[in-house]
């Protein structure tokens, strides 16, 4: 299972990368593996507000909906619209398939580094 060193992680299996004050958010390899084949994604729109720890959308795998929780508070700058037609990219390339970019970040969930996240994944098995 891949856990890139340069990313930060939440205990709810989202990854986060901050570039020039913009937070890029996606789901981890562990998450996509636990979900199984993703068939649908609900995305917010650019300009929407997201709140740390609250849901900003959801993914549906076979009959299972999982809410996506935002690791940060801020304003959605962009959403990855490619995922609307190709949600399976979340399975094939979880770290390439970013979901949203958030700007004006005011608050963050507690974030883990790659080592701590790996420990968490091992615990959840």
């Amino acid at each position, binding site marked *: 299972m891949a856990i890139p060193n340069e990313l930060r992680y939440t205990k*709810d299996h989202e990854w986060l990368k901050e570039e020039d004050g913009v937070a890029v958010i996606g789901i981890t390899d562990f998450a996509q593996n636990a979900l199984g084949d993703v068939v649908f994604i609900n995305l917010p729109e650019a300009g929407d507000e997201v709140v740390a720890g609250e*849901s900003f959308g959801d993914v549906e795998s*076979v*009959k*299972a*909906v999982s*809410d996506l929780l935002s690791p940060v508070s801020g304003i959605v700058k962009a959403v990855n619209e490619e995922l609307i037609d190709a949600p399976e990219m979340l399975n094939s390339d979880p770290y390439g398939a970013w979901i949203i970019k958030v700007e004006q970040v005011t608050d963050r969930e507690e974030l883990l580094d790659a080592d701590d996240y790996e420990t968490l994944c091992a615990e959840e098995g």
Partner: protein
Amino acid sequence: MIHKLFVCRARGTNPYENLALEEALLHRVGEGELILYLWQNERTVVIGKNQNPWKECRTALLEEEGGHLARRLSGGGAVFHDLGNLNFTFLMSAGDYDLPRQLTVLERACQSLGIPAQRSGRNDLLADGRKFSGNAFYSHAGKSYHHGTLMVDVNMENVQRYLSPSKAKLAAKGVDSVRSRVVNLREFVPDLTIEHLSDALISALAEVYCSDMNVGTSIACPPTCDPLQICHSARSEESAPATPVLPLNVDELDLRALTEKYRSEEWLYGQKLPFTASVEERFPWGGVELQLDVNEGVIRAAKVYTDAMDDTLAPRVEAVLSGCAFRGEALKSALAGICLPAEQEGQLVSLLETAL
């Protein structure tokens, strides 16, 4: 490890209140706790979280006959509920979630009643190759539920009528239902009742989970449920004092707000999933094709193609339909506003209704 079991039975049969209680219970459930929630809805089509209601259900017909449309949080396809159906929900923390074990509870309950239940590849339950239990799943912030239907004596004619596709052509994104052959459990056990099945589920739950527990366990219920007390720890029959029924506090305000959410037009019809519905028909005065672009439950653009002699017809109809809610009453009053001949107006209303 589960150390507390709760069983809740909804008192009412209103789908919005019952779905609200289900979500409130999910908020409430703690680590190491498992809630089995049993509930029934009167005449209701329940669609999956990411489904288009018009694509899955004859919404106008359902409404006309006093039924409800409801949208749940979990994924998957549309199902029909009436009082011949029993719904179950297992709610717990994600760490306590164990799908094979939960399915074992269902299978044991069925076996104890003489029903030859088998799991399908989609985690549904089949008997004799036909589905009697459709299962779906939801998780949010470290909590999960697994719920499903159990068809005891559902009106199959209504299943067919409400879940049959409309005449309209619908180009829509979202999750489509997978059609299955369904069967009522009464076909296998002619005198089966909802009560028998509920009791069998509760006994099976106790059998499967009580071995986990080392303290006396009571089953508790929130105030909106009927109290049930069923589970006894295998290891504490004599030594442990009887534990008082634990109150399962569900916040009343939370419950009320959730009921309003499930009932709201926005939740049911207002999804941000643009789609196009087209219907066509030939009338004595000409052929008509209507193309409606709908998003968030409102017609954003309407296109009318017609060979009718009246060349003001198309632009007038387009003008009143754009911006109109994609709902029977709203469409009817919009068309009434352009003073068409009564017969023509009636024909156009009927045509639009075939899309609903």
